[in-house]
């Protein structure tokens, strides 16, 4: 029973971490390896707004989502636009941007027990033998809501459909009147904003540590790759597979195996079926 409950919360947490990354890298084909850095930056900005500028929690949360979203937009216009088309260079550039952000934050000392974001509602509830704090319940709610919204966004709305279009075939998308640069920038902005939303939901569970900037990227990569980057059901399935694997491993073996499982899953899936369990668009491009 505990395993099921912890497994579900853990899986939804993973899905939440991955959702922004999948929106940019998977659904619209713009690599955003600064995802983890934006997640971290969002958390720290919120902390600064609350504790040093005295802005109420709700406003500071919205403010940091907007700021980081704009930053993602700027990352595209300032940097990625010049490298568009060379996917590997895009990856290197965004990874470098992530390193710059994370290392500067580390240098400024935003790490440790002082840096704690407030929970939405304090307290916890007892289900069977499992202790579940309200924050985690909220987190599951937010995660489920975001996934449903994401699904309808990418399948029903014009903007969402154009996100998928530029990933499938950019030239055809352009010929159908989609401004691919604008769409890609928008997708990067949405993805970064979603990273902050995930950060605001997850970070209150512990203190902020700059190392999470790298960890989040790895988890997001793992979920994205296992599920197949471009599919929303893939994200859900992959986060449940990985989430339950992690909980099982942590329960029956040692907790250190957790990261090994995640990393191993990435390598295994990439070696066997690189476009992931649900991926289908890229099968011709990924290997020879």
């Amino acid at each position, binding site marked *: 029973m505990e395993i099921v409950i912890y497994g579900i919360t853990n899986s939804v947490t993973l899905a939440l971490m991955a959702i922004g990354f999948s929106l940019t890298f998977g659904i619209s084909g713009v690599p955003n390896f600064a995802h983890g850095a934006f997640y971290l930056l969002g958390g720290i900005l919120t902390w600064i707004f609350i504790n040093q500028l005295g802005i109420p929690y709700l406003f500071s949360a919205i403010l940091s989502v907007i700021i980081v979203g704009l930053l993602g937009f700027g990352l595209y216009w300032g940097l990625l636009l010049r490298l568009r088309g060379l996917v*590997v260079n895009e990856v*290197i550039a965004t990874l*470098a941007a*992530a*390193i*710059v952000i994370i*290392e500067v934050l580390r*240098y400024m000392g935003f790490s440790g027990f002082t840096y704690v974001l407030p929970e939405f509602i304090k307290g916890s509830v007892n289900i069977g033998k499992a202790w579940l704090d309200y924050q985690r319940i909220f987190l599951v709610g937010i995660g489920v809501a975001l996934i449903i919204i994401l699904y309808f966004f990418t399948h029903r709305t014009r903007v969402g459909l154009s996100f998928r279009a530029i990933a499938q075939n950019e030239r055809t998308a352009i010929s159908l009147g989609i401004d691919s640069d604008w769409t890609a920038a928008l997708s990067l902005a949405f993805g970064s904003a979603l990273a902050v939303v995930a950060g605001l939901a997850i970070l209150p569970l512990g203190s902020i540590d700059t190392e999470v900037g790298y960890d989040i990227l790895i988890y997001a990569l793992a979920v994205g790759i296992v599920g197949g980057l471009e599919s929303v059901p893939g994200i859900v399935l992959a986060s449940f597979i990985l989430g339950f694997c992690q909980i099982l491993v942590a329960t029956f073996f040692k907790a250190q195996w957790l990261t090994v499982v995640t990393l191993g899953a990435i390598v295994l899936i990439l070696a066997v079926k690189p476009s992931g369990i649900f991926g289908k668009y890229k099968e011709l491009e990924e290997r020879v």
Partner: protein
Amino acid sequence: MAEAVRYRKERIDRGIKARTDTIYVLSSFRDMVYLFLPRFLPIILLLLLPFFVKGGYWEKVLFYSCMFALLALSWDFMASVGLVSLGQALFFGVGAYISGGLNHYFKMPIFLTIPIATLGGALFCTLLLFSVLRLRGVYFSMVTLILPLLFAHLIETLDILGGTHGLLSLTPFPSGWLSVYLAIIGVIICLFGFRKLISEDFGLVLRGIKDDDRVVMAGGINIHWYKAQAIFIAGAVGCFAGALMTHYYQFVGRSVFALDYTVLPLAGAVLGGPGSFAGATIGTFILVPLSEVLRALGGLRMALYGVILIAALVILPEGLFHYIERRYHQFERDVRI
């Protein structure tokens, strides 16, 4: 109305190349100097440098520069086959752990551990990457990004090979000279060897795989075999660097799989200009001493590499070396339009 006089730049090749890249007409001593200076200057400089920095701190910096230059060369070699790696730390770490482990557990002497680590490590990495050789572009990059992390975590979790403490008190080099000269000779051999190799028939196939792998396959060439050979060569260079570093430090720990050993060579190669090998060497020989000068910045150094990497990608995508090469081989003059 007076039209504004406008100029454009015209580039003229220096008239020394006769027919191809390798056939020259040398008519004067000046031509010979022109041709051989860029080849011999780096060799002489590299061989003489240890005399100027005799012992002490800057000898260490020279050694580091050579290490990272080796890693950058190995990155560049893989990149010229189209395998863009984001994990040179994998090769570095495997080489370091093999030589460290052999030395620690079996008490092997240095002149055995380094060759074994170089060849064995390369073989290990090739076998490890063999199953993902079919991946193209960014998928391969992602595997290489993850693998060093996986190894670092495995060593910590399984508590093997010294676990989090690492292996201590390994055999040092008999003298500082030996280590520095081994590194320098390694850099020179790789630099000129790779440049030669990539212009041979073998290199032609490799460059073909980078440009269009399916065409090479259509030509009846087994591209996986060629890719495996390229990884073996690049892996051997990376493992050699790792093995040297292990004995230089007399220590090997999980930090050999750290992001530094990926990012710095990458930044160096991109700054210097990928695809030329000389560029990778120049880039690292600029970056490593620079980062030592800026040691006061502490943790910000990684951020600095990131900034340099971005700047190099955006501002000078061809890299320093291609820029210098162009200036050297071509006159530039203003021509009135």
